[in-house]
């Protein structure tokens, strides 16, 4: 059990997916203008990422390894992720139209979130078991959500700040992210 908690903490703080491993930067920059958007994106990503890391583990162990076609893993995983995103969208539409209304627009974007494919590949490279994979995916998603919401809050404040002309827009966002990343480097060696 303590091992699983260490996996979680390591994925959320020490090796944060966005700020330390550079995965999922497109939604990090793209959907962090408002806190509401950031929260919606985080919730949708958490759901898909956890599910995707479990399913891709199963596909790898019980389909690709027995058939000896592990070199096809990139293609297999992207198909799994796209199918899962589609499945989630249909499921949400049928069971909870309200949730679909709130999170629906974020779902198609998750297919091209490199954190989802990245977690699947990192799980395989690290040789994680099924439970470890699920926890790693969940931790990665929590780390992504934490940073995305914090960053959205910072950017809302930043809109009111007097930024020098050339630095306005994405440039100051990058520099803010650099400072956040510097803060997260402080967790190095925690686990």
């Amino acid at each position, binding site marked *: 059990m303590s091992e699983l908690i260490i996996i979680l903490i390591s994925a959320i703080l020490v090796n944060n997916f966005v700020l330390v491993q*550079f995965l999922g930067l497109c939604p990090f920059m793209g959907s962090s203008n408002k806190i509401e958007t950031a929260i919606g994106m985080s919730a949708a990503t958490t759901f898909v990422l956890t599910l995707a890391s479990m399913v891709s583990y199963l596909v790898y162990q019980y389909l690709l390894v027995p058939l000896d076609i592990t070199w096809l893993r990139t293609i297999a995983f992207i198909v799994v992720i796209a199918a899962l995103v589609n499945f989630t969208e249909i499921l949400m539409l049928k069971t909870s139209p309200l949730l679909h209304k709130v999170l629906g627009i974020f779902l198609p974007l998750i297919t091209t979130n490199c954190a989802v494919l990245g977690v699947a590949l990192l799980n395989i490279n690290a040789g994680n078991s099924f439970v470890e994979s699920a926890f790693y995916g969940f931790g990665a998603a929590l780390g992504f959500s934490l940073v995305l919401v914090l960053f959205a809050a910072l950017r809302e404040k930043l809109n009111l700040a007097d930024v020098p002309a050339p630095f306005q827009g994405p440039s100051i966002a990058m*520099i803010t992210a650099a400072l956040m990343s510097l803060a997260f480097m402080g967790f190095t060696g925690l686990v």
Partner: protein
Amino acid sequence: MNKNLTSISKQALWQNNPALVQLLGLCPLLAVSASVVNALGLALATTMVLIFSNLIVSLIRHQVTDAIRLPVFVLIIASFVTCAELLMQAYAYSLYLSIGIFIPLIVTNCAILGRAVTFAVKNSPLISAFDGLMMGLGFSSILILLGALRELFGTGKLFANMDILLPMASNWEITILPNYSGFLFALLPPGAFLFMGMLLALKNFIDKQLADSITKHQNAQQMASRFAKDMS
């Protein structure tokens, strides 16, 4: 025709640069830019995938219906990424290890899917392939520039370990700043964000200067013509 190609190049390299303006493909850009050799390796792979995916997408654009467009394009891109991955494993294994998962993650580089959906489905194969090449070069130039800046500030050297990409380049390493004690910050993740932010600011600054000089030029011309009218 020629004008069309020039405008594609201009768009891809400056006005609509995938890395600087559209901010697509940020993950590999920031993650693999700690040294020139990594940046160059990823730049080559990404450009190759872009050219071939644009070409194939454009060739089959009349056969693919709108409903299945995205999955088909993603599969085409994923196939070329797998090719690039296998080629790199065969010919530059240590480079493959050093870039790590960002080779398979070329699949999720939105710049590639973006070009397929916005450009290749509407244009003929050769133009699409050319657009892929130019977009690849636009992305690569920023990637390599960022790699060079971070390597220079981080270690004081340039082109270290180039032999893992090109076997004949074993003595290309140049020490630009002798007795430089190194600046780890530039090589760590925060450095990547900071240098990228600076590059974006520089782009804004240059654009502003260009726009200013154009308006100044126009104003001067207006003044001159008014002056000529008054004189006559």
